[in-house]
């Protein structure tokens, strides 16, 4: 009797063990509900450095000039020179100087980040109001002003991730801190 119970117990453990492993992978609390593809389609707006997340569409430097003049120039200047808001153009070669000028052209490592940011946050008075084509166009125009793409450039999900930014390799990680030699304290 006792040995039969023991055998049953062992059998139960053997049977349940894989189940337990599986159970760890299942929801513990059962809170929330499956996210629908429709929900994600509307909110999944990020664009990675490799271009993953870029929406269909395209925009030219020429189109960008028009969009920029209408939606961006009031804050960033006709040619991206800034004032009152951030300067977007120039500054190349200044990063190691006493007065570095950090712009899209001199500092930003990825062109895709420009798309991501303009799409989610610009213009300041109407974020997420630009169409995908308009965002591609504005990116093209800004990259043109920074002499990174030619005047005839057309940006789309294939060409934008291939744009090589001048400061692409200007960033270091991981974090080297603590990096300041410690004083001998009492």
């Amino acid at each position, binding site marked *: 009797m006792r040995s039969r119970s023991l055998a049953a117990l062992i059998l139960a453990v053997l049977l349940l063990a894989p189940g337990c492993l599986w159970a760890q992978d299942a929801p513990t609390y059962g809170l929330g509900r499956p*996210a629908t593809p429709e929900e994600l389609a509307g909110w999944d707006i*990020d664009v990675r450095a490799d271009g993953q997340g870029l929406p269909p569409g395209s925009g030219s430097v020429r189109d960008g000039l028009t969009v920029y003049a209408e939606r961006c120039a009031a804050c960033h200047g006709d040619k991206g020179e800034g004032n009152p808001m951030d300067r977007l153009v120039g500054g190349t070669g200044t990063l190691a100087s006493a007065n570095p000028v*950090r712009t899209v052209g001199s500092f930003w490592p*990825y062109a895709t980040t420009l798309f991501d*940011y303009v799409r989610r946050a610009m213009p300041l008075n109407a974020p997420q109001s630009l169409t995908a084509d308009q965002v591609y166009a504005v990116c093209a125009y800004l990259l043109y002003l920074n002499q990174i793409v030619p005047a005839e450039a057309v940006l789309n999900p294939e060409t934008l991730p291939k744009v090589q930014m001048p400061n692409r390799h200007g960033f270091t990680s991981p974090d080297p801190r*603590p990096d300041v030699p410690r004083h001998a304290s009492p």
Partner: protein
Amino acid sequence: MPAKPVSLRGLVGRRAFLSRGAILAGSAAGLGTLFRRTASAQSDANLPPHVPQWMTEQGTPIVSPAYGVPSPFEHDVVRRPRAKTRTMTAASSCTPLQDLHGIITPNGLHFERHHAGVPAIDPDAHRLLVHGLVERPVTFTMNDLMRFPSVSRLHFLECSGNSFWTGTTAKSTVQETHGLLSCCEWTGVLLSTVLAEAGVKENAKWILAEGADAAGLSRSVPIEKALDDALLVYAQNGERLRPEQGYPLRLLLPGYEGNMNVKWLRRLKLGDQPFETREETSKYTDLMPDGTARQFTFVMEAKSVITFPSGGLQLHDHGFYEISGLAWSGRGRITRVDVSTDGGANWEQAQLQEPILTKCLTRFRVPWRWAGSPARLQSRAIDETGYEQPDRADLVAVRGLNSYYHCNAIQEWQVSADGAITNAV
């Protein structure tokens, strides 16, 4: 006790200090009146031996107002804009550290740093989406999130732009130099609990955290931090989050730079690489003298500052004062704070007020006797990793003056012979 404890440095010996506890208790209540305001021009009608006017009639009734507010006499204890900015929505305001006591920041005084203003979010119309490299993409309502097992923890938050590498003036106050710093009890659910509900895939290494503000502010968080002590919080200091702090939901990454603690959190996307958002490339990266920029410098290193006496205050009388301040480290607990009254030539160990918690503000105190000679007040913090807060010169020697973020240099306040306190420039 002999007079010896009142050393050349002006620091009072520990034992002498203890014996003067009664003096301390008696003087603490009047600090604000003593130092923040000039002497009242009012009559003596409410002073002894007269019966104070407020004892001769009923006070205001209950629930007036229903949500209590500070005494009108504390009207100047307020957040103040950090600097003139081109917009008041992409801007920051500072906590009045000089007026606070203990380690908790009152909710209405928590510093602000917004990138597109404060959104007015209806919690019933708010959702958190968890997707990407998960077994089951999930949509959570606030009710869902508040049903999870909850935790409450005290942690500081500091903007990585807190304290200036250059540009302060003799008139700078501690509110200006260090006020992008606050500390609350945060309540919410461990992020690891919520992630387990969705099932983290093995190749998930980074999580994009995205806010529901008009900046859609987004940062990449390493999975190790997310599964360690990260929280999804919905309450601070006992009440639901203030709108300025992310109502109805924010991410809290203890010890990490402020902007990563994404407010108004609406989306977590798991991926196998960082997402390279604007806030982790063109901003919140630290430019070094050689022109390269450090990326993903998350931790706020140990730091401290004397909040009393501090810039802008005026000592009117010679005699006893308690030097008091705050110390904190994004790497753990504070183990020691030293205070100098002579610009760093000599140091005395400060008393640390319990509780001393990990990644939390710690209040320190040193008794001091001011005899009327000029003094240079400094504090330096040491944390449990052995890290010691650096001198400004040592810090600048490594990082130059253009890295903008993560300035944790020792702060000095200068006391002049007439008792005026100024920022050492």
